[in-house]
């Protein structure tokens, strides 16, 4: 009598499934790698290829609004790639200046976020554990409200007839309202406000691990607090600074919602250009080409981020 099925039926479900998969040649390791690989394939690589394909086609009033890049007729498969879309991006100065402007706005916003976020992260890391949890909670709390609503709330603050202008006018500080909404200033406020937690959290995670005995040693050797900050704390937190800066910079470059709601016609960001190409100009091939170029512009900072993460892991081990 074969008792094997009985033993298997008494196994926990997970192990049972594991055995069956093993029998068909699937191993745990392979599965663990297969799921994220499949995820990336379906949700990243295939959409990327679709966008790349559209970027090589020609716009048309049709459904979909571009011409196919290959054609099958009389046994011939003919391809027609339209590189004109990419050439157009380099010929028209608009796109280069939009990329530069996006990088500039994201860069300045990142520096402001760092200057604001570093002291906050430092304070949180140095406070007593109970207070620390409360402070961290306060940093994360805004995420409970939709990002869109929070940006909308800024419209109420910044507009000509808004809270800030009305307050200043009622105090007699100004006679005519300041134009703040639909300016680059409002875009900086929006981006710094939105991404500040992404700066604080990695900085905090880094600073909280900093061994206080290093600072004690520096102090014993005669360094004043300001000197020990610049020679000990700052260099040791460098990987946190890089991670925080990249987490702010990368999404800020492609930001669309903040410039769309708070920016004016002079705010030239690539996210808005992309939207414009797609919805106003209905020119999918150009829009796709802009997206592909943007992806490559962002690859460099992403590589930097990965390096910083690798360095941190090395330091930890």
């Amino acid at each position: 009598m074969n008792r094997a099925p009985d033993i298997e039926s008494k196994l926990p479900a997970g192990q049972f499934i594991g055995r069956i998969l093993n029998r068909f040649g699937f191993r745990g390791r392979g599965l663990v790698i297969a799921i994220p690989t499949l995820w990336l394939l379906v949700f990243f690589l295939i959409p990327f290829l679709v966008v790349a394909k559209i970027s090589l086609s020609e716009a048309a009033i049709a459904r979909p609004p571009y011409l196919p890049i290959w054609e099958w007729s009389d046994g011939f498969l003919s391809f027609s790639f339209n590189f004109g879309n990419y050439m157009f991006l380099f010929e028209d100065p608009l796109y280069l200046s939009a990329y530069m402007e996006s990088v500039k706005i994201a860069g300045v916003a990142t520096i402001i976020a760092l200057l604001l976020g570093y002291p906050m992260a430092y304070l949180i890391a140095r406070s007593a554990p109970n207070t620390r949890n409360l402070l961290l909670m306060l940093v994360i709390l805004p995420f409970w409200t939709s990002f869109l609503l929070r940006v909308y709330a800024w419209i109420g603050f910044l507009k000509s007839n808004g809270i800030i202008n009305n307050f200043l006018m009622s105090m007699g500080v100004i006679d005519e309202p300041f134009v703040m909404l639909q300016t680059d200033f409002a875009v900086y406020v929006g981006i710094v406000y939105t991404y500040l937690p992404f700066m604080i959290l990695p900085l905090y995670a880094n600073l909280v691990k900093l061994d206080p005995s290093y600072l004690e040693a520096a102090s014993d050797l005669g360094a004043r607090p300001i000197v020990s900050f610049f020679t000990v704390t700052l260099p040791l937190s460098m990987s946190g600074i890089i991670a925080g800066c990249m987490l702010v910079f990368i999404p800020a470059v492609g930001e669309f919602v903040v410039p769309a709601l708070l920016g004016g016609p002079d705010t030239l960001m690539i996210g808005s250009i992309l939207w414009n190409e797609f919805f106003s100009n209905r020119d999918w091939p150009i829009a796709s080409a802009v997206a592909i170029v943007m992806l490559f512009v962002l690859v460099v900072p992403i590589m930097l981020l990965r390096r910083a993460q690798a360095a941190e892991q090395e330091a930890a081990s």
Partner: protein
Amino acid sequence: MKKLSTFTSILAITAGAAVAEGELNIYNWSDYIAEDTIANFEAATGISVNYDVYDSNEILEAKMLTGSSGYDLVVPSIEFLARQAKAGVFSPIDKEALSNYGNLDPVILNIVALNDPDNTFGVPYTMFTTGIGYNVTKVASRIEADQIGSWDMVFDPKTAAKLADCGVAVLDSPSEMIAPALNYLGLDPNSEDTDDLEQAVALMQSVRPHIRYFHSSQYINDLANGDICVAVGYSGDVLQARDRAAEAGQGVEVAYAIPTEGGQVGFDMLAIPDDAPNPENALAFINYILEPEVAAAITNYVYYANPNTLATEFVDEEVASDPGIYPSAEISAHLFSLKPHSARYDRSLTRAWTTIKTGQ
């Protein structure tokens, strides 16, 4: 590849509006229907309505050309309907199924038939003009009285500069801004000539530093709240802003002018996408809109004239006598309507518009 496309089309369908018996998915302009029209239609027919809004023909066209939008009824302006019909995105209207079709004004049907032969794909919904909405007190203290209600407010750099501090907004629509610019220059608003376009672009660029923003619906609230003082806008939208300002009682007074130099008159058309999941319900809704009381109620609420001859007696006296809604014969003589663009011109136009908007 076949499997993949089936897969993506399933994704597209589930991503769009829900598909089920007894549903109707409408995609209409923002602030473009009476408050109770949808509720009354649902009560009368038992069809449940999903109602979404947009604020520019270009956005609607982007969705229509993408396909699988999931919408059963959309409302493009006539010149856009004509373009999209050529791409085959609409189903012909089954007029036999519309018992109220005879209520439509034959004069207006003939006008829209110039772009939609035999009225095949569209049923006229409302008539609008594009003109200037302004804050009466703020504008009066900044510019000469004879310039109020003239395109000078937007297209003359000196005049626009005086208004810049209180806020000038224009529509984010290349077709509806370049046409009045051409008209202001004394050129044909429907010209597809490159030199004419260049002149219009130069005109827009000369006033661009004084433009607060390009947007096709935000001006309604901003005019009403006093956040801007001049907007190029659609007649009914500006008149709604006027009412909201009066209701708020903050001392903001808004007025609408069809500019003396002439403005655009347009028609928005009810149309059914060829891939509509519930085309019969869309027809039922069109027929409902064609009932005189329903059409009149919409006009009374949104301040856009309707093409329904039987509806006129149900339109409020103050609405029917408002020259901003029903323009006088004298003003009508200066109005122009738009023709569909060729694909080639459309591309130059949108490129030019991007240049103007971004100031590059």
